[in-house]
């Protein structure tokens, strides 16, 4: 990264970590904290979906991993008393491991076939959660405590959320930091040799294999990173709602994650983030439209895709410097 990019990143951080809280304070729109926290978390899950798009697979199964991640965190916190912040990576890891076993057979599928199997996967996850005793079946897991204090050598790194005056702000900050880390990782993947390799898979798997790329391995790696992101996002959500049910993430969510990527643009790292912001925030803002909310919302989506079939970021405005997808 060059200086200019560092600078822009810094500006972005300043805006989301200082500017937004200031604007919310000034305008008194406290409800936007939750909306923006959701956008941040959902865009992490969407980033995972985007990564599977990047290796040429349409993933409509991310909801399964957000659900698994949510349950993993909830079970660890409520039954084993593990600190929530530790359950975050553990939930991601659990999802990554499970995704390896699921991914090995199904990643051989392509195109709509892969898409359909992942769609079924979301439903399988929901039904499994309903059937298992450890997930408490239909009754879900409720009354999950707020994230506890995280300290290292007696030094408080993250305070106990239950003692905070404004946990909304704390959740927002945590979500935004996670989102930034996630997209930094994604940016790094795409702009390193890894990105080239992923794109080689997306464009031609046979050729990729013939130049010596272990395509099966790379696919599974990408898929498990994607699932890791889903798991982390799911776990974070559960800490906000302090409850999880088999229906907390469903097929609709999986479809939405995918739509976020399309809307933002499949060729752009920041596509899923922008897509999530538009789709989620859009719905929220249209809430004043009453019963016409869905009508207007869907009309806008159709309009956008007809005008910009390659995503919002394909607008010339965003590509002045040329240089294709970055």
């Amino acid at each position, binding site marked *: 990264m060059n200086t200019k990019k560092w600078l822009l990143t810094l500006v972005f951080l300043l805006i989301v970590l200082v500017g937004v809280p200031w604007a919310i304070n000034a305008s008194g729109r406290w409800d936007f904290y939750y909306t923006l926290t959701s956008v941040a978390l959902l865009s992490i899950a969407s980033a995972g979906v985007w990564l599977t798009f990047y290796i040429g697979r349409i993933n409509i199964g991310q909801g399964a991993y957000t659900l698994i991640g949510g349950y993993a965190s909830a079970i660890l916190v409520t039954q084993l008393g593990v600190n929530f912040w530790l359950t975050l990576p553990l939930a991601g890891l659990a999802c990554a491991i499970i995704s390896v076993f699921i991914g090995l057979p199904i990643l051989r599928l392509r195109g709509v076939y892969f898409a359909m199997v992942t769609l079924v996967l979301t439903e399988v996850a929901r039904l499994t959660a309903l059937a298992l005793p450890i997930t408490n079946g239909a009754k879900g897991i409720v009354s999950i405590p707020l994230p506890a204090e995280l300290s290292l050598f007696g030094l408080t790194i993250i305070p106990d959320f239950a003692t905070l005056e404004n946990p909304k702000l704390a959740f927002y900050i945590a979500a935004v930091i996670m989102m930034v880390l996630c997209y930094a990782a994604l940016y790094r993947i795409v702009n390193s*040799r*890894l990105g080239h390799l992923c794109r080689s898979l997306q*464009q*031609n798997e046979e050729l990729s*294999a*013939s*130049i*010596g*790329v272990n395509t099966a391995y790379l696919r599974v790696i990408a898929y498990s990173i994607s699932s890791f992101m889903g798991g982390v996002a799911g776990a974070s959500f559960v800490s906000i709602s302090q409850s999880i049910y088999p229906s907390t993430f469903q097929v609709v969510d999986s479809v939405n994650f995918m739509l976020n990527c399309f809307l933002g643009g499949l060729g752009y790292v920041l596509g899923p983030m922008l897509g999530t912001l538009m789709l989620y925030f859009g719905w929220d803002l249209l809430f004043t439209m009453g019963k016409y909310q869905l009508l207007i919302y869907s009309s806008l989506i159709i309009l956008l895709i007809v005008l910009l079939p390659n995503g919002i970021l394909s607008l010339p405005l965003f590509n002045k410097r040329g240089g294709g997808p970055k």
Partner: protein
Amino acid sequence: MSTILEVKNLTRRFGGLVAVNSVNFTVNEGEILSIIGPNGAGKSTLFKLISSFLKTSGGEVIFKGEKISNLSPHVVARKGIVRTFQETTIFRSMTTRENIIVAHHLRAKASLSGYFWGSAKARRDEALFADSADEIITFLGMEPIADELASNLPQGNLRALGIAIGLATKPEILLLDEPFAGMNHDETMHMVDLVRNVQKERGVTIMLVEHDMPAVMKISDRIVVINFGEKIAEGTPAEIRNNEKVIEAYLGSEDDAIGI
């Protein structure tokens, strides 16, 4: 000259159909060996078997004394046998240079996570690949199109790019699938020179499947002729030209667009 590749009793059946039937031949190090035969004779299947894109039904392929048939394609590639494709298969939404850089994969020393974190090894790799790509671009005279998206390139350049991708892997054997198809005379002659250069200057053993007889006769050290999945002849271009069986095979086939 020593034997680098040995094909022993290689057989492949598709259902009841025998596409390749107990074919035997050897490839010498550093030569250009062409495989010819009428349409549907089983040439491409043979290539896919050698590069392990298809599993064998019988027989084996031995590379430097080691059996390589039925391994994963990427493992075979790693051992030094690299195939370019019949269709002009390249990474369409990458530039020429990016295509070549990606193709250096076999020479990568760093691990995947090394690339992510930008380890010293990874940085060394990237620098090496960029240099090597430049060298290949110069070698093949592709400077003008180096930063052009592959999807915008004309047919002839795509073939050259296919060979460039092959070269980037530093193969010991390069399998070229119909490198001259759809080219006019001038383009073909340019391509023949190019392939010859690759063999001479880089010491790569080359196997090719091709229909264009004049080009095959001009370029090959030796030729293997396949018909109905079986080998019917093997020898130098001069020997093949006068082989009764070969003439019969070609005359008997519908496709007589051949230049014997």
